[in-house]
C-alpha cells in the first residue's frame, strides 16, 4: 500500500448553501483498504462530506477523485463510478416492492448483465455472510430494522464495490439491533474493504478505524489514529466533544 496512491482524494471541497457553509475547504485522502471513521456533532458536515464521495451531494468548489475518476467533471460517467462505491443509508432505503433477493440481484442483473442464476447465487452467499440466509424470499417490510440494514449492506456488496460508504448506519436502529449491524461492518473491515463510516458509535470507531476524522462547522478539526484520538486529542473542540459523548 503506497501512501502516494489514495483511492479517494477529496481536495479543498467547499459547499455553500445560501448563507450557510456546509463544507469549508475540506480535504481527505483515503488509501485502499483503509477504514476511516468520521465523527462530529449534528450539522458538522460529516454526512455531506461522505455524500460527496459518490456525488450524491453537489459542491461549490474543490474536486473529488475516486479510483481515478474525477467525480465532478462533466465528462465522468457517474453511474459507472457509483457501481464501484457502495453506500449504506441511515434509513436503509430497501426497495419495498421487491423481495430481499430481488433487492440484491436487481443492480447486478440490470447494470452488469449478470445472469440471474449467478446473481442469485452471489446474493445468497451475501445473505449467509450478513447472517440472514433464511430471509431471501421475504419482503423488506417483514424484517426488523437490524435485518433491513444488513440486507442493505448485502445489496451494496452485491455490486462488488471497491469502496463502502456508511452514512450513520445504526442511527435509526433500536439499541438491541445496533450490535448485529456493527458486527457485519467489522467483519467487512477485516476482509480489507476500503470503508468510510459516519457514525456515533465510538466503540466501533475505536476498534475498527485506522483513522478518525473529527469534523465541526464544515471543517476537519482533527484527525488521528484511534489510540491517539481517544487518549490524547489535541484540539480543545475535540476534547469537549469527547467529554460530552463518552
Amino acid at each position: 500500500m503506497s501512501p502516494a496512491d489514495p483511492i479517494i482524494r477529496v481536495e479543498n471541497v467547499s459547499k455553500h448553501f445560501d448563507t450557510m457553509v456546509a463544507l469549508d475547504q475540506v480535504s481527505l485522502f483515503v488509501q485502499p483498504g483503509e477504514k476511516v471513521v468520521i465523527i462530529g456533532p449534528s450539522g458538522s458536515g460529516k454526512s455531506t462530506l461522505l455524500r460527496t464521495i459518490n456525488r450524491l451531494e453537489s459542491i461549490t468548489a474543490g474536486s473529488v477523485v475516486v479510483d481515478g475518476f474525477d467525480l465532478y467533471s462533466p465528462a465522468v460517467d457517474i453511474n459507472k463510478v457509483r457501481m464501484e462505491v457502495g453506500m449504506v443509508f441511515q434509513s436503509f432505503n430497501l426497495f419495498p416492492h421487491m423481495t430481499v433477493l430481488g433487492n440484491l440481484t436487481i443492480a447486478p442483473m440490470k447494470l452488469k448483465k449478470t445472469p440471474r442464476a449467478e446473481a442469485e447465487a452471489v446474493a445468497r452467499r451475501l445473505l449467509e455472510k450478513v447472517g440472514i440466509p433464511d430471509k431471501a424470499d421475504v419482503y423488506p417490510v417483514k424484517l426488523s430494522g437490524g435485518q433491513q440494514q444488513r440486507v442493505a449492506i448485502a445489496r451494496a456488496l452485491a455490486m462488488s464495490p471497491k469502496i463502502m460508504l456508511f452514512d450513520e448506519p445504526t442511527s435509526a436502529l433500536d439499541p438491541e439491533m445496533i450490535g448485529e449491524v456493527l458486527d457485519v461492518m467489522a467483519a467487512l473491515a477485516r476482509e480489507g474493504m476500503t470503508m468510510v463510516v459516519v457514525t456515533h458509535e465510538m466503540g466501533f470507531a475505536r476498534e475498527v478505524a485506522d483513522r478518525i476524522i473529527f469534523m465541526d462547522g464544515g471543517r476537519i478539526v482533527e484527525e488521528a489514529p484511534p489510540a491517539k484520538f481517544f487518549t490524547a486529542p489535541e484540539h480543545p473542540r475535540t476534547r469537549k466533544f469527547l467529554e460530552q459523548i463518552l
Partner: protein
Amino acid sequence: MNEDKKTSQDIKPVVIEVGDGAAIPSRRDRGLVSAWKLSFFFAVATLAYLLIFRPTPYWRLFKFLPDGILVTFQVTILSILLAIVIGLLTGLGRISRNRTINLVASTYVEIVRGIPLLVQLFYIYYAIGHFVKVPDMVAAVVAMSFCYGAYMGEVFRAGILSISHGQTEAARSLGFSRTQTMFFVILPQAWRTILPPVGNEFIALLKDTSLVSILAVSDLLRRGREFASESFLYFETYTMVALIYLIITLILSKLVSIMEERLSRHVTR
C-alpha cells in the same frame, strides 16, 4: 443537513384527490344503507320497473342503445390508454430538471385546464379536420386524451413525488441512471398511489365521452338522440340513457373502491 433524515417508515401513503369522478364509496359507507347502495338499488329497480311494466317504448330503447354503450366504452378505453401515456410523459416532464421540458409540460397542463372540454373537443376536431381527414372516432379519442392527459399528468406527478427521496438515492448510489431509477424503482412503487385516481379519471372520462355525441360519434347519448328524433319520445329516451350511465358509473366506482382497498391493505409498511 442530513443528520435528521426521516426513515422511510415515517412516510404515510399519500392519497391523491382528483375530483370530478363519481363519488367513490368509502369504508364508512359499508353499512346496510349507504348512498351507493341506495342509488344502485334505485337505478336498477327503476330500470326493471320500466322494462317490465312499460315494455313500449322501453324494451325497444333497451335493444336500441347497447351499440352506443359499446362505442362509449371504446372511446373511454382508447382515450384512457392514450391519456395514461400522455400523462406519464407530462408527469415526468413536470418533475424534470430540464427547464425547457418542464416548461412545455407545465404550459400544456395550464392550457388544457383553462379551456372547457367541450370547446377543446370542437377545436381539436375541426383543427384535425382542417388538415387531414380522420374518422370521427379517432378525432374524438385524440381530443379526449389530450384533455385527460393533462389531469393524468398531475396524478403521475403526485404519485412519483409520493415515493421517498431515499429510494432514488439508494438506486442512484448503486449505479442506476435517472431513467432506470424511475422505471425499476420509483414507478413500480408509485402505481399503488396512482391507480385509484386513474380509476376515478376513467369514470369521469366515461361520463365526459357523452360530449363526443356532438361529433357524429355514435356513443350512448348519440344513439339516444337518434332514437328520440325519430320517435319524439324525448323524456323516455333520456330517462333510459341517464339510468344506463348511472348504473355503469356506480358499478365502476364500486370496482375502484374495491381496488383502492386491496392496494391500501398491501401498502401498509
